[in-house]
Protein backbone atom coordinates (compact mmCIF):
# COMPACT_ATOMS: atom_id res chain seq x y z
CA UNK A 1 0.00 0.00 0.00
CA UNK A 2 2.91 2.29 0.76
CA UNK A 3 4.16 1.74 -2.79
CA UNK A 4 0.77 2.36 -4.33
CA UNK A 5 0.58 5.58 -2.35
CA UNK A 6 4.05 6.55 -3.60
CA UNK A 7 2.91 6.06 -7.19
CA UNK A 8 -0.27 8.09 -6.67
CA UNK A 9 1.68 10.93 -5.04
CA UNK A 10 4.26 10.68 -7.83
CA UNK A 11 1.61 11.22 -10.47
CA UNK A 12 0.51 14.34 -8.58
CA UNK A 13 4.10 15.61 -8.33
CA UNK A 14 4.51 14.78 -12.01
CA UNK A 15 1.80 17.29 -12.83
CA UNK A 16 4.08 20.03 -11.51
CA UNK A 17 7.08 18.72 -13.46
CA UNK A 18 4.98 18.59 -16.64
CA UNK A 19 3.85 22.17 -16.06
CA UNK A 20 7.49 23.22 -15.72
CA UNK A 21 8.45 21.38 -18.87
CA UNK A 22 5.64 22.72 -21.09
CA UNK A 23 7.26 26.00 -22.07
CA UNK A 24 10.66 24.42 -22.54
CA UNK A 25 9.12 21.83 -24.84
CA UNK A 26 7.16 24.43 -26.83
CA UNK A 27 10.15 26.75 -27.36
CA UNK A 28 12.31 23.86 -28.45
CA UNK A 29 9.59 22.38 -30.64
CA UNK A 30 8.75 25.60 -32.47
CA UNK A 31 12.19 27.22 -32.84
CA UNK A 32 14.82 24.76 -31.52
CA UNK A 33 15.42 27.26 -28.74
CA UNK A 34 17.13 25.94 -25.60
CA UNK A 35 16.18 28.18 -22.70
CA UNK A 36 18.56 27.74 -19.76
CA UNK A 37 16.76 30.50 -17.86
CA UNK A 38 13.52 28.51 -17.82
CA UNK A 39 13.81 27.50 -14.15
CA UNK A 40 14.69 31.04 -13.11
CA UNK A 41 11.67 32.30 -15.04
CA UNK A 42 9.46 30.00 -12.98
CA UNK A 43 10.92 31.48 -9.79
CA UNK A 44 10.51 34.96 -11.29
CA UNK A 45 6.84 34.13 -11.90
CA UNK A 46 6.47 33.10 -8.25
CA UNK A 47 8.09 36.36 -7.07
CA UNK A 48 5.87 38.40 -9.37
CA UNK A 49 2.99 36.65 -7.61
CA UNK A 50 4.52 37.64 -4.22
CA UNK A 51 4.47 41.29 -5.30
CA UNK A 52 0.98 41.10 -6.77
CA UNK A 53 -0.33 39.47 -3.58
CA UNK A 54 1.31 41.97 -1.27
CA UNK A 55 -0.03 44.85 -3.36
CA UNK A 56 -3.58 43.58 -3.82
CA UNK A 57 -4.15 40.96 -1.14
CA UNK A 58 -5.39 38.51 -3.75
CA UNK A 59 -5.37 34.76 -3.22
CA UNK A 60 -2.33 33.21 -5.04
CA UNK A 61 -4.63 31.29 -7.40
CA UNK A 62 -6.44 34.50 -8.32
CA UNK A 63 -3.12 36.37 -8.66
CA UNK A 64 -2.50 34.27 -11.80
CA UNK A 65 -4.97 36.56 -13.57
CA UNK A 66 -2.29 39.27 -13.32
CA UNK A 67 0.91 37.18 -13.20
CA UNK A 68 0.20 35.22 -16.38
CA UNK A 69 -0.44 38.22 -18.68
CA UNK A 70 2.59 40.04 -17.24
CA UNK A 71 4.86 37.08 -17.93
CA UNK A 72 3.27 36.53 -21.35
CA UNK A 73 4.06 40.10 -22.31
CA UNK A 74 7.59 39.76 -20.92
CA UNK A 75 8.18 36.62 -22.99
CA UNK A 76 6.85 38.25 -26.14
CA UNK A 77 9.00 41.36 -25.67
CA UNK A 78 12.14 39.44 -24.73
CA UNK A 79 11.87 37.23 -27.81
CA UNK A 80 11.41 40.22 -30.13
CA UNK A 81 14.07 42.32 -28.41
CA UNK A 82 16.73 39.70 -27.69
CA UNK A 83 16.14 36.00 -28.31
CA UNK A 84 15.29 36.43 -32.00
CA UNK A 85 18.85 37.60 -32.60
CA UNK A 86 20.13 34.25 -31.34
CA UNK A 87 17.96 32.09 -33.61
CA UNK A 88 20.27 30.18 -35.92
CA UNK A 89 21.12 26.58 -36.75
CA UNK A 90 23.85 26.90 -34.12
CA UNK A 91 22.30 26.35 -30.65
CA UNK A 92 25.20 27.99 -28.79
CA UNK A 93 24.06 31.66 -28.96
CA UNK A 94 20.67 30.86 -27.40
CA UNK A 95 22.32 28.78 -24.67
CA UNK A 96 24.78 31.57 -23.82
CA UNK A 97 22.16 34.32 -23.84
CA UNK A 98 19.68 32.42 -21.66
CA UNK A 99 22.47 31.27 -19.32
CA UNK A 100 23.29 34.94 -18.84
CA UNK A 101 19.64 35.85 -18.43
CA UNK A 102 19.31 33.24 -15.68
CA UNK A 103 22.15 34.83 -13.73
CA UNK A 104 20.63 38.28 -14.20
CA UNK A 105 17.22 37.08 -12.96
CA UNK A 106 18.73 35.39 -9.89
CA UNK A 107 20.65 38.50 -8.87
CA UNK A 108 17.82 40.93 -9.54
CA UNK A 109 15.58 38.73 -7.38
CA UNK A 110 18.24 38.64 -4.64
CA UNK A 111 18.52 42.43 -4.72
CA UNK A 112 14.80 42.99 -4.80
CA UNK A 113 13.43 40.33 -2.47
CA UNK A 114 16.54 39.34 -0.41
CA UNK A 115 17.66 35.74 0.02
CA UNK A 116 14.80 34.80 2.35
CA UNK A 117 12.65 31.82 1.47
CA UNK A 118 9.07 32.66 0.61
CA UNK A 119 5.86 30.77 0.30
CA UNK A 120 2.51 31.56 -1.29
CA UNK A 121 -0.25 31.11 1.26
CA UNK A 122 -3.55 29.79 -0.05
CA UNK A 123 -5.07 29.07 3.36
CA UNK A 124 -6.32 25.81 4.82
CA UNK A 125 -6.70 24.09 1.45
CA UNK A 126 -2.93 23.59 1.60
CA UNK A 127 -3.25 20.79 4.12
CA UNK A 128 -6.64 19.40 3.12
CA UNK A 129 -6.91 16.18 1.19
CA UNK A 130 -9.28 13.57 -0.12
CA UNK A 131 -9.05 10.23 1.68
CA UNK A 132 -9.16 7.46 -0.87
CA UNK A 133 -8.31 4.59 1.49
CA UNK A 134 -6.76 4.48 4.93
CA UNK A 135 -3.30 4.54 3.40
CA UNK A 136 -3.86 6.87 0.45
CA UNK A 137 -4.91 10.48 0.64
CA UNK A 138 -4.72 12.91 -2.26
CA UNK A 139 -3.92 16.50 -1.34
CA UNK A 140 -6.06 19.18 -2.94
CA UNK A 141 -3.10 21.27 -4.03
CA UNK A 142 -1.27 18.44 -5.85
CA UNK A 143 -4.56 17.38 -7.43
CA UNK A 144 -5.31 20.91 -8.66
CA UNK A 145 -1.74 21.13 -10.00
CA UNK A 146 -2.19 17.92 -11.97
CA UNK A 147 -5.56 19.02 -13.36
CA UNK A 148 -4.10 22.37 -14.40
CA UNK A 149 -1.10 20.67 -16.05
CA UNK A 150 -3.32 18.30 -18.04
CA UNK A 151 -5.58 21.21 -19.01
CA UNK A 152 -2.68 23.43 -20.13
CA UNK A 153 -1.05 20.66 -22.16
CA UNK A 154 -4.41 19.59 -23.61
CA UNK A 155 -5.17 23.16 -24.65
CA UNK A 156 -1.71 23.45 -26.21
CA UNK A 157 -2.22 20.23 -28.16
CA UNK A 158 -5.65 21.42 -29.38
CA UNK A 159 -4.18 24.76 -30.39
CA UNK A 160 -1.35 23.08 -32.32
CA UNK A 161 -3.57 20.63 -34.16
CA UNK A 162 -6.74 22.67 -34.78
CA UNK A 163 -6.02 26.38 -35.07
CA UNK A 164 -4.33 28.54 -37.68
CA UNK A 165 -1.82 29.67 -35.04
CA UNK A 166 -1.00 26.02 -34.35
CA UNK A 167 -0.55 25.27 -38.04
CA UNK A 168 1.74 28.27 -38.32
CA UNK A 169 3.79 26.93 -35.38
CA UNK A 170 4.04 23.54 -37.09
CA UNK A 171 4.99 25.22 -40.38
CA UNK A 172 7.88 27.27 -38.93
CA UNK A 173 8.98 24.31 -36.86
CA UNK A 174 9.23 22.25 -40.05
CA UNK A 175 10.76 24.78 -42.45
CA UNK A 176 11.07 28.50 -41.59
CA UNK A 177 12.03 29.80 -45.09
CA UNK A 178 9.07 28.03 -46.69
CA UNK A 179 6.78 29.27 -43.91
CA UNK A 180 7.90 32.81 -44.76
CA UNK A 181 7.01 32.16 -48.40
CA UNK A 182 3.49 31.39 -47.17
CA UNK A 183 3.35 34.90 -45.68
CA UNK A 184 4.14 33.86 -42.10
CA UNK A 185 6.07 36.45 -40.09
CA UNK A 186 8.26 33.92 -38.28
CA UNK A 187 9.92 36.40 -35.91
CA UNK A 188 6.57 37.53 -34.59
CA UNK A 189 5.43 33.92 -34.29
CA UNK A 190 8.52 33.06 -32.22
CA UNK A 191 7.59 35.93 -29.90
CA UNK A 192 4.08 34.51 -29.49
CA UNK A 193 5.54 31.07 -28.71
CA UNK A 194 7.88 32.55 -26.11
CA UNK A 195 4.98 34.48 -24.59
CA UNK A 196 3.05 31.22 -24.19
CA UNK A 197 6.16 29.54 -22.76
CA UNK A 198 6.58 32.31 -20.18
CA UNK A 199 2.88 32.16 -19.29
CA UNK A 200 2.97 28.41 -18.63
CA UNK A 201 6.19 28.57 -16.63
CA UNK A 202 4.69 31.38 -14.53
CA UNK A 203 1.77 29.08 -13.69
CA UNK A 204 4.30 26.39 -12.78
CA UNK A 205 6.22 28.84 -10.59
CA UNK A 206 3.11 29.91 -8.70
CA UNK A 207 2.09 26.30 -8.07
CA UNK A 208 5.63 25.56 -6.89
CA UNK A 209 5.37 28.49 -4.51
CA UNK A 210 2.05 27.20 -3.15
CA UNK A 211 3.46 23.71 -2.71
CA UNK A 212 6.80 24.54 -1.11
CA UNK A 213 8.99 27.45 -0.08
CA UNK A 214 11.25 29.00 -2.68
CA UNK A 215 14.16 31.44 -2.91
CA UNK A 216 15.82 33.48 -5.68
CA UNK A 217 18.42 30.77 -6.40
CA UNK A 218 16.04 27.81 -6.76
CA UNK A 219 15.63 28.11 -10.55
CA UNK A 220 18.41 25.84 -11.82
CA UNK A 221 17.11 22.81 -9.89
CA UNK A 222 13.68 23.32 -11.47
CA UNK A 223 15.31 23.65 -14.88
CA UNK A 224 16.96 20.28 -14.42
CA UNK A 225 13.66 18.51 -13.70
CA UNK A 226 11.97 20.31 -16.59
CA UNK A 227 14.72 19.20 -18.97
CA UNK A 228 14.50 15.63 -17.73
CA UNK A 229 10.74 15.58 -18.22
CA UNK A 230 11.08 16.91 -21.79
CA UNK A 231 13.82 14.46 -22.73
CA UNK A 232 12.07 11.46 -21.17
CA UNK A 233 8.83 12.28 -22.99
CA UNK A 234 10.39 13.24 -26.30
CA UNK A 235 11.45 16.64 -27.62
CA UNK A 236 8.67 18.62 -29.22
CA UNK A 237 5.89 16.22 -28.24
CA UNK A 238 3.11 17.75 -26.13
CA UNK A 239 1.73 14.49 -24.69
CA UNK A 240 5.31 13.29 -24.34
CA UNK A 241 5.96 16.20 -22.01
CA UNK A 242 3.04 15.13 -19.83
CA UNK A 243 4.17 11.49 -19.82
CA UNK A 244 7.76 12.55 -19.08
CA UNK A 245 6.63 14.74 -16.19
CA UNK A 246 4.45 12.02 -14.68
CA UNK A 247 7.13 9.35 -15.01
CA UNK A 248 9.70 11.64 -13.42
CA UNK A 249 7.30 12.42 -10.59
CA UNK A 250 6.64 8.74 -9.91
CA UNK A 251 10.40 8.06 -10.00
CA UNK A 252 10.92 10.77 -7.37
CA UNK A 253 8.28 9.51 -4.94
CA UNK A 254 9.06 5.83 -5.42
CA UNK A 255 12.74 6.65 -4.94
CA UNK A 256 11.70 8.62 -1.89
CA UNK A 257 10.64 5.32 -0.30
CA UNK A 258 14.36 4.61 0.18
CA UNK A 259 14.91 7.84 2.09
CA UNK A 260 14.78 6.10 5.43
CA UNK A 261 17.72 3.92 4.43
CA UNK A 262 19.70 6.11 2.06
CA UNK A 263 18.86 9.67 3.02
CA UNK A 264 17.07 12.59 1.44
CA UNK A 265 18.59 12.43 -2.06
CA UNK A 266 17.19 9.03 -2.97
CA UNK A 267 14.07 10.45 -4.70
CA UNK A 268 15.89 12.78 -7.13
CA UNK A 269 18.55 10.09 -7.59
CA UNK A 270 16.01 7.57 -8.89
CA UNK A 271 14.58 10.35 -11.11
CA UNK A 272 18.02 10.98 -12.62
CA UNK A 273 18.53 7.23 -13.12
CA UNK A 274 15.22 6.90 -15.00
CA UNK A 275 16.28 9.88 -17.13
CA UNK A 276 19.65 8.26 -17.90
CA UNK A 277 18.06 4.92 -18.78
CA UNK A 278 15.63 6.60 -21.22
CA UNK A 279 18.42 8.71 -22.70
CA UNK A 280 20.59 5.63 -23.23
CA UNK A 281 17.93 3.29 -24.60
CA UNK A 282 15.54 5.67 -26.40
CA UNK A 283 17.31 8.99 -27.04
CA UNK A 284 14.34 10.39 -28.97
CA UNK A 285 12.16 10.00 -25.86
CA UNK A 286 9.17 7.78 -25.14
CA UNK A 287 6.76 9.62 -27.46
CA UNK A 288 9.27 11.61 -29.50
CA UNK A 289 9.58 11.56 -33.22
CA UNK A 290 12.62 9.69 -34.43
CA UNK A 291 15.63 11.94 -34.93
CA UNK A 292 15.64 13.35 -38.46
Amino acid at each position, binding site marked *: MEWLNAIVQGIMLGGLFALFATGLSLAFGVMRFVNLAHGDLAILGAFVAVSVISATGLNPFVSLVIVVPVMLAAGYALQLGAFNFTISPDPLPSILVTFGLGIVIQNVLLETYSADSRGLDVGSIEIESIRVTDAIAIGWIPLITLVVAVTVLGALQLMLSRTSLGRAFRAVSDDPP*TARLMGINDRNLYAVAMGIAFATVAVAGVFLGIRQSFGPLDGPAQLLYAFEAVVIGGLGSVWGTLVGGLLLGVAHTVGGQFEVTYGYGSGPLVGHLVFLVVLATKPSGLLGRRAE
Partner: protein
Amino acid sequence: MAPLLEVAGVDKSFGVKVVDDLSLQVNAGDALGIVGPNGAGKTTLLNLIAGDLSCDRGSIRIEGEDVTRTSSDWRCRHGLARTAQIPRPFEGMTVFENVLVGAVFGAGVPMSETNATPAAVEALERAKLLASANTRAGALPLLGRKRLELARALATRPKILLLDEIAGGLTEAEVLELVDTIRDIHAGGVTIVWIEHIVHALLAVVGRIMAMSFGMKIAEGDPAEVMASPEVQEVYLGVAPE
Protein backbone atom coordinates in the same frame (compact mmCIF):
# COMPACT_ATOMS: atom_id res chain seq x y z
CA MET B 1 1.23 52.57 -65.26
CA ALA B 2 4.23 51.06 -63.51
CA PRO B 3 5.12 47.49 -64.45
CA LEU B 4 3.90 44.78 -62.05
CA LEU B 5 7.48 43.72 -61.35
CA GLU B 6 10.55 45.78 -62.03
CA VAL B 7 14.09 44.63 -61.31
CA ALA B 8 16.62 47.40 -61.81
CA GLY B 9 20.39 46.98 -61.88
CA VAL B 10 20.48 44.19 -59.30
CA ASP B 11 23.78 42.66 -58.12
CA LYS B 12 24.36 39.69 -55.87
CA SER B 13 27.74 38.30 -54.99
CA PHE B 14 28.82 35.25 -52.99
CA GLY B 15 32.52 35.97 -53.37
CA VAL B 16 31.94 35.79 -57.13
CA LYS B 17 29.19 37.77 -58.80
CA VAL B 18 26.20 35.49 -59.27
CA VAL B 19 23.78 38.14 -60.51
CA ASP B 20 25.42 41.03 -62.32
CA ASP B 21 23.65 44.32 -63.03
CA LEU B 22 20.45 42.60 -64.06
CA SER B 23 17.33 44.50 -65.05
CA LEU B 24 13.97 43.13 -66.00
CA GLN B 25 10.36 44.25 -66.37
CA VAL B 26 7.23 42.16 -66.17
CA ASN B 27 3.81 43.63 -66.90
CA ALA B 28 0.54 42.34 -65.51
CA GLY B 29 -0.61 39.34 -67.53
CA ASP B 30 2.86 38.52 -68.89
CA ALA B 31 4.41 35.09 -68.84
CA LEU B 32 8.20 35.35 -68.85
CA GLY B 33 10.51 32.36 -69.19
CA ILE B 34 14.11 32.45 -67.95
CA VAL B 35 16.69 30.06 -69.40
CA GLY B 36 20.41 29.65 -68.94
CA PRO B 37 22.98 27.01 -68.11
CA ASN B 38 23.45 25.70 -64.58
CA GLY B 39 25.15 28.33 -62.45
CA ALA B 40 23.88 31.22 -64.57
CA GLY B 41 22.24 32.76 -61.48
CA LYS B 42 18.61 32.03 -62.33
CA THR B 43 17.58 30.66 -58.95
CA THR B 44 19.55 33.40 -57.18
CA LEU B 45 17.62 35.97 -59.22
CA LEU B 46 14.35 34.35 -58.17
CA ASN B 47 15.50 34.35 -54.53
CA LEU B 48 16.27 38.06 -54.81
CA ILE B 49 12.85 38.79 -56.28
CA ALA B 50 11.09 36.68 -53.62
CA GLY B 51 13.10 38.25 -50.81
CA ASP B 52 14.91 35.09 -49.64
CA LEU B 53 18.15 36.92 -50.38
CA SER B 54 18.90 40.62 -50.21
CA CYS B 55 20.37 42.56 -53.15
CA ASP B 56 23.90 43.96 -52.89
CA ARG B 57 22.86 46.75 -55.25
CA GLY B 58 19.88 47.78 -57.34
CA SER B 59 16.18 47.78 -56.57
CA ILE B 60 13.09 45.67 -56.91
CA ARG B 61 9.65 47.23 -57.29
CA ILE B 62 6.20 45.69 -57.25
CA GLU B 63 3.55 47.90 -58.87
CA GLY B 64 5.93 50.83 -58.56
CA GLU B 65 6.52 50.34 -54.83
CA ASP B 66 10.12 49.78 -53.76
CA VAL B 67 10.26 46.43 -51.93
CA THR B 68 14.04 45.95 -52.02
CA ARG B 69 14.38 46.01 -48.21
CA THR B 70 11.26 43.98 -47.35
CA SER B 71 11.21 40.40 -46.05
CA SER B 72 9.99 37.41 -48.01
CA ASP B 73 6.88 37.04 -45.84
CA TRP B 74 5.98 40.71 -46.46
CA ARG B 75 6.35 40.24 -50.22
CA CYS B 76 4.18 37.13 -50.05
CA ARG B 77 1.42 39.12 -48.35
CA HIS B 78 1.75 41.75 -51.08
CA GLY B 79 1.16 39.55 -54.07
CA LEU B 80 4.37 37.62 -54.74
CA ALA B 81 4.52 33.83 -54.60
CA ARG B 82 7.20 31.32 -55.51
CA THR B 83 7.61 27.58 -55.77
CA ALA B 84 10.81 25.80 -54.78
CA GLN B 85 13.00 23.81 -57.17
CA ILE B 86 12.93 20.87 -54.78
CA PRO B 87 9.40 20.73 -53.34
CA ARG B 88 9.38 21.49 -49.63
CA PRO B 89 5.93 20.62 -48.29
CA PHE B 90 5.25 20.71 -44.55
CA GLU B 91 5.50 16.94 -44.44
CA GLY B 92 3.60 16.27 -41.24
CA MET B 93 0.49 18.12 -42.43
CA THR B 94 -2.14 17.04 -44.90
CA VAL B 95 -2.21 18.56 -48.38
CA PHE B 96 -5.21 20.66 -47.35
CA GLU B 97 -3.48 21.95 -44.20
CA ASN B 98 -0.43 22.91 -46.25
CA VAL B 99 -2.57 24.98 -48.58
CA LEU B 100 -4.63 26.39 -45.71
CA VAL B 101 -1.46 27.85 -44.13
CA GLY B 102 -0.83 29.80 -47.33
CA ALA B 103 -4.47 30.85 -47.58
CA VAL B 104 -4.56 32.17 -44.00
CA PHE B 105 -1.17 33.86 -43.76
CA GLY B 106 -0.60 34.91 -47.35
CA ALA B 107 -3.87 36.83 -47.59
CA GLY B 108 -2.34 40.12 -46.49
CA VAL B 109 -5.26 40.77 -44.12
CA PRO B 110 -6.13 38.98 -40.87
CA MET B 111 -8.10 35.93 -41.87
CA SER B 112 -9.79 33.09 -40.00
CA GLU B 113 -9.43 29.52 -41.24
CA THR B 114 -13.14 29.41 -42.02
CA ASN B 115 -12.87 32.48 -44.26
CA ALA B 116 -9.69 31.17 -45.88
CA THR B 117 -11.10 27.75 -46.68
CA PRO B 118 -12.77 28.69 -50.02
CA ALA B 119 -9.46 30.13 -51.26
CA ALA B 120 -7.63 26.98 -50.17
CA VAL B 121 -10.13 24.74 -51.95
CA GLU B 122 -9.96 26.87 -55.08
CA ALA B 123 -6.16 26.72 -55.07
CA LEU B 124 -6.32 22.92 -54.79
CA GLU B 125 -8.77 22.83 -57.68
CA ARG B 126 -6.62 25.05 -59.89
CA ALA B 127 -3.55 22.94 -59.12
CA LYS B 128 -5.64 19.78 -59.79
CA LEU B 129 -4.89 18.39 -56.36
CA LEU B 130 -8.34 18.43 -54.76
CA ALA B 131 -8.60 14.61 -54.84
CA SER B 132 -5.53 14.34 -52.62
CA ALA B 133 -6.64 16.98 -50.11
CA ASN B 134 -6.51 14.66 -47.12
CA THR B 135 -3.30 12.86 -48.04
CA ARG B 136 -0.33 13.50 -45.78
CA ALA B 137 1.95 15.80 -47.80
CA GLY B 138 5.01 13.65 -47.09
CA ALA B 139 3.32 10.71 -48.86
CA LEU B 140 2.76 12.51 -52.21
CA PRO B 141 4.64 11.35 -55.32
CA LEU B 142 6.83 13.90 -57.13
CA LEU B 143 4.14 15.28 -59.47
CA GLY B 144 1.82 15.64 -56.49
CA ARG B 145 4.51 17.53 -54.58
CA LYS B 146 5.03 19.87 -57.53
CA ARG B 147 1.28 20.44 -57.71
CA LEU B 148 1.28 21.11 -53.96
CA GLU B 149 3.98 23.78 -54.46
CA LEU B 150 1.68 25.36 -57.04
CA ALA B 151 -1.45 25.06 -54.89
CA ARG B 152 0.25 26.54 -51.83
CA ALA B 153 1.58 29.44 -53.86
CA LEU B 154 -1.85 30.05 -55.44
CA ALA B 155 -3.53 29.98 -52.03
CA THR B 156 -1.60 33.13 -51.08
CA ARG B 157 -3.51 34.92 -53.91
CA PRO B 158 -0.47 36.01 -55.91
CA LYS B 159 -0.46 38.64 -58.61
CA ILE B 160 2.85 37.25 -59.73
CA LEU B 161 3.97 33.64 -59.49
CA LEU B 162 7.65 32.67 -59.60
CA LEU B 163 8.24 29.07 -60.72
CA ASP B 164 11.65 27.48 -60.19
CA GLU B 165 12.20 24.46 -62.47
CA ILE B 166 8.84 23.07 -61.59
CA ALA B 167 8.91 20.61 -64.51
CA GLY B 168 12.32 19.22 -63.56
CA GLY B 169 12.48 15.51 -62.71
CA LEU B 170 9.06 14.67 -64.14
CA THR B 171 8.33 12.17 -66.91
CA GLU B 172 7.40 13.54 -70.32
CA ALA B 173 3.70 12.79 -69.79
CA GLU B 174 3.76 14.47 -66.38
CA VAL B 175 5.46 17.55 -67.84
CA LEU B 176 2.63 17.89 -70.37
CA GLU B 177 0.01 17.56 -67.62
CA LEU B 178 1.73 20.19 -65.52
CA VAL B 179 2.12 22.54 -68.49
CA ASP B 180 -1.66 22.36 -69.00
CA THR B 181 -2.19 23.33 -65.37
CA ILE B 182 0.25 26.24 -65.54
CA ARG B 183 -1.31 27.49 -68.78
CA ASP B 184 -4.72 27.48 -67.06
CA ILE B 185 -3.30 29.39 -64.09
CA HIS B 186 -1.82 32.00 -66.44
CA ALA B 187 -5.08 32.23 -68.37
CA GLY B 188 -6.80 32.83 -65.01
CA GLY B 189 -4.92 36.13 -64.69
CA VAL B 190 -1.76 35.26 -62.77
CA THR B 191 1.45 36.76 -64.11
CA ILE B 192 4.19 34.14 -64.39
CA VAL B 193 7.99 34.22 -64.22
CA TRP B 194 9.28 30.72 -64.89
CA ILE B 195 12.81 29.31 -64.77
CA GLU B 196 13.01 26.06 -66.69
CA HIS B 197 15.48 23.79 -68.46
CA ILE B 198 12.77 21.91 -70.35
CA VAL B 199 12.41 24.40 -73.16
CA HIS B 200 9.37 22.92 -74.89
CA ALA B 201 7.44 23.19 -71.62
CA LEU B 202 8.35 26.85 -71.41
CA LEU B 203 7.49 27.54 -75.01
CA ALA B 204 3.98 26.14 -74.46
CA VAL B 205 3.24 28.87 -71.91
CA VAL B 206 5.48 31.92 -72.05
CA GLY B 207 5.25 34.85 -74.43
CA ARG B 208 8.78 36.08 -73.80
CA ILE B 209 12.11 34.54 -72.83
CA MET B 210 15.15 35.98 -71.10
CA ALA B 211 18.45 34.10 -71.36
CA MET B 212 21.10 34.42 -68.63
CA SER B 213 24.77 33.49 -68.47
CA PHE B 214 27.22 34.24 -65.65
CA GLY B 215 24.64 36.38 -63.89
CA MET B 216 24.02 38.64 -66.91
CA LYS B 217 21.16 38.95 -69.33
CA ILE B 218 22.41 37.87 -72.76
CA ALA B 219 19.15 37.96 -74.71
CA GLU B 220 15.49 38.77 -74.24
CA GLY B 221 12.46 38.76 -76.47
CA ASP B 222 10.37 36.46 -78.61
CA PRO B 223 10.93 32.86 -77.42
CA ALA B 224 11.81 31.36 -80.81
CA GLU B 225 14.17 34.23 -81.69
CA VAL B 226 15.92 34.13 -78.31
CA MET B 227 16.43 30.38 -78.46
CA ALA B 228 17.77 30.65 -82.03
CA SER B 229 20.10 33.57 -81.30
CA PRO B 230 23.85 32.86 -81.57
CA GLU B 231 24.55 34.02 -77.98
CA VAL B 232 22.05 31.56 -76.55
CA GLN B 233 23.12 28.77 -78.90
CA GLU B 234 26.67 29.21 -77.71
CA VAL B 235 26.21 29.31 -73.91
CA TYR B 236 23.21 27.09 -73.73
CA LEU B 237 23.89 24.40 -76.29
CA GLY B 238 27.66 24.72 -76.55
CA VAL B 239 27.52 25.60 -80.25
CA ALA B 240 30.14 28.14 -81.32
CA PRO B 241 28.81 31.04 -83.39
CA GLU B 242 29.87 30.96 -87.04
